[in-house]
């Protein structure tokens, strides 16, 4: 039938002839059908996401060690980590992101390492450190029989070089501030091949604890940033083979490693091309990687039921997640406001909501596991007291801005939950989101904005915690402690504690310092977190402790079944 004939029929009021007009598929059907599809799809994907595992508190914690047995030599560990792009480098002094830290610990060694419960420290290249009467001269006894990857013997001269040149220079070591003003570099003395004398300009009773920080890997005498960028020579369990920043590094076993028989695997491949945490988890399940440090916490909870990979959790919780309030100026300069916020925070709820239950509440005290840590100071939430304190301070109806960033569960998720808690208590907290790349830079207002967040690994000693966060020239001065009125006395107290060598007196001084922080400090430390790592089902021998992922990155302990 021609179009004209069809039209004639229709306009005459008759039904259009059968088959001349497509039937049944009106626009309405299409839109309804499309919506139904997308709705179904959404439900389907949500179902896939929750995957049937136990979630929330009460689910069993993961073990802290993988199954053991007789180690087998051979095979390759392929580690998946989030990319840091071209910023990745091999020099321990300029390591800032996770792939760098893993590479530093694989190629190089440290004088001391954090112990399984932070203290006492584990010996590394140094077997012990002895001090004189007043802790102004430290003598290090070094491990004998250690060789560098190029065959040269490791001696005290190498360590002296690190102290006097690389660790003292802020342009070649990002953590030089920890040792700044402490070491008398001109008088560092090599006594013999395994003994080094390090005089200090001011007494520091816990000096060795400062040397566990991840930027203090020991490099060979004469090494420079350029030489390490092209040919890194270390004493670590793995030797350098190749490195493409932002993509991958390949290391091979160091046959002359100072721990007999280790590492067991032939090769260590660190793949840092990932930009997505879901892709990392998928790659572990799919077998493209077999080691995944700092696994996504929700995936870790779910695998309890699905058993697609193994999860490790350190028994001792030493990473600290905190909110930081400036004590010198801004809305939190009044101590009552700070106390109020610390009282209204329901820490367990934050842990359950943001960390999938992986953590334990902290009471705003820095340094769990450190010597003289005041574990008896306990914060009990009290919303009514918080409200009355705010009213007293005249801040009852004020708006507070919390600056956060999408850097993982301990940041934006926790900030969102905390803002909700505050709102329920009648306190107005607004979130200001800054992107992850600039959050910890001056452009992102680091150390400027009055209310921010942080997540920190254990600094192994209260001295380190103070020198990191609270002393006058501390590099991570979130709270500007010491700059408030009367702050000089507080700083003087810290200096006293750092220098005190008598055990009883030191215990008392450190107690005073921590009590002051507990009463008046600017940190709201809401959780102590464990290290949670994952490995494929055929990996054995690895452990998780308080000292960084996989027990100070000791992949040399592991093997493949």
């Amino acid at each position, binding site marked *: 039938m021609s179009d004209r004939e069809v039209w004639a029929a229709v306009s005459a009021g008759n039904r259009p002839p059968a088959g001349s007009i497509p039937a049944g*598929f009106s626009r309405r059907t299409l839109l309804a059908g*499309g919506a139904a*599809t997308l709705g179904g799809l959404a439900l389907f994907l949500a179902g896939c996401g929750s995957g049937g595992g136990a979630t929330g508190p009460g689910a069993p914690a993961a073990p802290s060690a993988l199954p053991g047995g007789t180690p087998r030599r051979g095979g390759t560990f392929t580690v998946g980590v989030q990319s840091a*792009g071209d*910023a*990745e480098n091999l020099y321990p002094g300029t390591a800032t992101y996770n792939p760098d830290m893993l590479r530093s610990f694989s190629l190089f060694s440290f004088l001391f390492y954090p112990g399984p419960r932070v203290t006492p420290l584990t010996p590394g290249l140094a077997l012990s450190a002895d001090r004189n009467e007043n802790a102004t001269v430290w003598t290090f006894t070094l491990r004998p029989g250690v060789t560098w990857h190029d065959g040269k013997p490791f001696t005290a001269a190498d360590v002296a070089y690190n102290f006097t040149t690389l660790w003292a220079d802020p342009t070649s070591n990002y953590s030089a501030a920890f040792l700044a003003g402490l070491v008398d570099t001109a008088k560092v003395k090599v006594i013999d091949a395994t003994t080094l004398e390090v005089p200090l300009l001011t007494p520091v009773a816990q000096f060795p604890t400062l040397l566990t920080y991840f930027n203090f890997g020991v490099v060979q005498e004469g090494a420079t940033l350029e030489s390490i*960028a092209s040919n890194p020579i270390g004493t670590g369990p793995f030797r350098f083979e190749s490195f493409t920043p932002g993509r*991958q590094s390949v290391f091979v076993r160091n046959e002359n490693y100072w721990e007999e028989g280790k590492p067991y695997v032939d090769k260590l491949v660190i793949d840092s091309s990932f*930009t997505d945490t879901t892709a990392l988890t998928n790659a572990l399940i*799919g077998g493209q990687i077999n080691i995944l440090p700092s696994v996504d916490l929700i995936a870790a909870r779910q695998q309890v039921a699905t058993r697609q990979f193994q999860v490790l959790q350190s028994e001792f919780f030493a990473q600290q997640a905190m909110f930081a309030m400036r004590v010198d100026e801004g809305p939190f300069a009044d101590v009552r406001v700070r106390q109020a916020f610390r009282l209204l925070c329901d820490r367990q709820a934050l842990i359950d909501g943001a960390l999938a239950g992986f953590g334990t509440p902290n009471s705003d005290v820095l340094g769990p596991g450190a010597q003289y840590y005041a574990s008896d100071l306990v914060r009990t939430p009290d919303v009514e007291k918080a409200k009355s304190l705010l009213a007293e301070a005249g801040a009852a109806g004020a708006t507070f801005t919390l600056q956060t960033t999408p850097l993982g569960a301990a940041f934006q998720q926790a900030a969102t939950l905390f803002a909700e808690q505050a709102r329920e208590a009648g306190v107005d907290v607004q979130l200001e989101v800054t992107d992850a790349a600039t959050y910890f830079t001056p452009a992102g207002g680091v150390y400027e904005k009055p209310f921010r967040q942080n997540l920190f690994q254990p600094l192994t000693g209260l001295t380190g915690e103070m020198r990191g966060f609270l002393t006058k020239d501390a590099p991570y001065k979130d709270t500007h402690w010491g700059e408030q009125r009367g702050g000089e006395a507080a700083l003087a107290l810290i200096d006293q504690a750092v220098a005190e060598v008598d055990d009883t007196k030191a215990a008392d001084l450190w107690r005073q310092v921590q009590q002051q922080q507990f009463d008046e400090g600017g940190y709201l430390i809401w959780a102590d977190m464990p290290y949670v790592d994952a490995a494929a089902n055929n990996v054995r021998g690895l452990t998780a402790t308080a000292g960084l992922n996989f027990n100070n990155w000791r992949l040399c302990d592991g093997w493949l079944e």
Partner: protein
Amino acid sequence: MSAPTEIGPAPGAPVAPATPPRVRRPVVDFLVRRIALGVLTLVAGSILIFLATNALPGNVAQVVLGRDATPERLAALESSLGLDRPLVERYVSWLVGALHGDLGRSAVAMAQSAPETSVSVLIAGPLLNSSVLALIAAVLLIPLSLAVGVFAAVRAGRPSDHVLSYVTLAFGALPEFVLGTLLIVVFSSWLGLLPPVSLLGPSETPLSRPVGLVLPVLTLLGVAVAFSSRQVRAGMIRALRSEHVKTARLNGLAERRIRYRYGLRTSLATSVQSFAQSIQYLFGGIIVVEALFTYPGIGTALINAVLRRDVTQVQGIALLLAAAYIVINILADLVVLLVVPKLRTGAR
């Protein structure tokens, strides 16, 4: 003596119709004009890229040094990276270098004293990887879209056409990361047939591990084929309903010949335009797909460069992508010009 007779056309001979002046060499003219315009567009684009990159909060020195940036260190690093020079001077020197194939030096690599700092060298590998991915997707896109589009057009109005219409609408509406995640769930988690990530070592080429290409290509194709096949179908239906097709049918020509010679061939111009659009759309899709599958291409490189505020690398990659976009545009229009004689002859 008679008046001179004008020499006119012989009686009965055909009279040449009056036509407008013909363009002598239409293809060359077109190319010259479009390439000149393309260069101007690229220059304008480069200015925008440069301004946008340098407007990002935080400069590369701050980001690289991170929490450990002291004012002295920042100043020293900024000076060695040339960040203290005026904006116009930096732009001009960059552009001049780019015209010679030198895309500058990666700011982050320089700050890290890395052995290789030239942007051109750093992105050569990822560029190759992305090109392989894009090329495979583009090459498969055309026959697949044509097949699906023609199939649907020929069965227009029948149930199979409706089903196909519905399916292509759903696929075309899905963002790449949704489709990609769905494919990972089905082919990786459930069936265990394909890897969920496409990791490649720095010295490996994508073709050395082809199984890692399957899911990324399927994801890219899913959306692009859905869109293009609908265009092919619409164009072909329109062509099949035209008068000259009816005439051909009435004259008894075989249906198959009518479909391809008259239906498809006539609608090719719009189809080519839609293919070009889809291929250009692939560029945006590639960034998401590469991140989802951890495919080491130019998209991942761009993401990392932006996160680290590596201005020279961001500029270099963005400029390359813009140039590719423009080239594809020109090529698509050239193909249309060749396929549609009317455009060349200027006939009405």
